[in-house]
């Protein structure tokens, strides 16, 4: 398992557009990918799950992945967050 903790830094948090980018990115990997925030752990390949994660700006999320491409998956998803999903 690979995991990485990141912070949501785009002003609007994980609203629909970033959620879509995240799900599209996650779906390109074979690994099972989950997002963990507080006590919630949700499937990164489901947009409803991602939107239900109350990930506002400043909150911390751990990305976890299990599978052959887990390292790359975690890294590329973390990058989306750090690039603020191209927003702001």
């Amino acid at each position: 398992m690979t995991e990485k903790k990141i912070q949501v830094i785009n002003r609007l948090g994980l609203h629909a557009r970033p959620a879509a980018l995240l799900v599209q990115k996650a779906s390109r990997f074979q690994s099972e990918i989950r997002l963990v925030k507080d006590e919630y752990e949700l499937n990164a390949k489901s947009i409803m799950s991602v939107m239900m994660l109350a990930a506002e700006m400043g909150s911390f999320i751990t990305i976890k992945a299990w599978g052959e491409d887990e390292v790359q998956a975690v890294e590329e998803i973390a990058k989306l967050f750090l690039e603020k999903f191209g927003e702001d």
Partner: protein
Amino acid sequence: MKNQKKNRIWLGISASPGIAIGKVYRLNRAEINIREENLSSDQVENEILRFEKALNEAKIEISKLKESVAKKLGPEHAKLFEAYLLILEDEFINQQVLSGIREEKKNAEFVYNRVVQKTIQTISLSRDEYLKERVADISAVSNRVLNRLLGIKQHTIEPLETPGIIVAHSLAPGDVVQMKKGNVLGFATDTGGKTSHVALLAKSFGFPAVVGLKTFFSSLKGGEMLILDGDEGEVILSPDEITLKSYEAKREKLLERKRSLADLTSLPAETKDKRKIELSANIELLSDVDTAIENGAQGIGLFRTEYLYLASSDLPGEEEQYQAYSFLARKVYPQNVIIRTFDMGGDKFVQDAERVYEANPFLGWRAIRACLDLPDFFKTQLRAILKASSLGNLSIMLPMISGLEELLKSKELLEEVKSELREKKVPFDEKIKLGIMIEIPSAALEADSLAQHCDFFSIGTNDLIQYTLAVDRTNERIAHLYQSFHPSILKLIKKTVEDGHKNNIWVGMCGEMATDPKATSFLVGLGIDELSTSPLAIPQIKKIIRSIEFEEARNLAEQAMKLDDSKDIEKFLDEDYQRKFSHENSART
């Protein structure tokens, strides 16, 4: 004859700027009523087919919207509708619906609505306004599916026959896409917030809009005269003649202002008496550079390279850095790009084992201090910058210099890298400029000697204020002590500019003060040569520069320097700014 009260003002939330004046077009929508029905076992598979058909039809509709938005506004804006398609395809919802229909033998709309409502409830628990917006997104999608299942004709916004303002209880992003510019002058809704997708789309399409008007919609009959003020976030129902006239004037003024700001991009940032100020942009991401250029930046006054690290989660290697720097150099050429070397805590540069807890990271091992301790790491960055410098438009800037020793040591390393490159015959700009940030009080006090060893200064006000006043502005209990216009700060800025000029080097500013319109005249008056601001602030700052005289600004700066209380100084500068520019900001008469 109207028996309504004139000039009834409703306060809402500004969603998209601009003024619209016209007749109310009331957009009425059928309520969605969902009944719970029991199915017999042989109806179940049919019900599932019905559900899937509704999903598919909704998908086709949304795909069409997506195409239309991509064509009109560009693929970036179409992303929202991609999210909508993903919502329709989401297994999390759909599996629950399918098993609900199968196991409970209930009708599709009932089960679907229940699943969606449950999700919406979970999200609504969030206190964050931005996050609540997601409820609107899910409703926008689920309403389409429900309408299909219930056989309600999909509401579309029919083209208005005469120009008017659309008023609805709520609107979905898809509705805004369907609005035709020309007859739709703007829109107002009871629901929605400032950052809703509806608001963002309204801005992109240029529709003035006010949202969050609560019960406005139900108070209307339709056809009333309405003023919609998207700047103030209010609407005025049945305005009288005088109000109408003043808003028509305001609308004209806003249009004119918009035109003149657009004209500004190509004009130089110079005072009326032709003193030129280099007006450039601070950027973090490579993608910010387009916004900077669009807004008329004369180059990049600060590229924060630590974002390269943040974006890749590993230390960016020489090649990755080289790619980024040469991309910028090419993109901005012939204008200049100032690349600031890594400005972050040293713990990011080393292995976990070497990390040490710091009680005061802002007074700790960071920026140039860490770079000088890790010369190989620092030289990699310098090498990448030099290799990308062949076009001759890159400069290097060192953060957090506290005194001469750090500057000289950095120069030594830079010279080492240069001679290595020469040996290997790698081309680079031999005349590359090296500047330093003035953001530590000791550096401002030592500006005279520092200026003899570098090519430019850029004042970083955020840190300068924090270190001079010993205030961490993120600490709410003392945030009021963070005073940008504290006389000590102004003195340090003045000294930096004077000492720089005495040694024939230029002095700029890339801190937040450079973006503050109140400070512009003062800074120009002190003789600042360059201001590097956030990309979006450039037109406004340029406008101020172009409307002042250097002499007049010098007087202002002189007056301000005589005051000894930060509140008085701020008030003095603000009054001057308001006197000259307030009519620009609020065209209200």
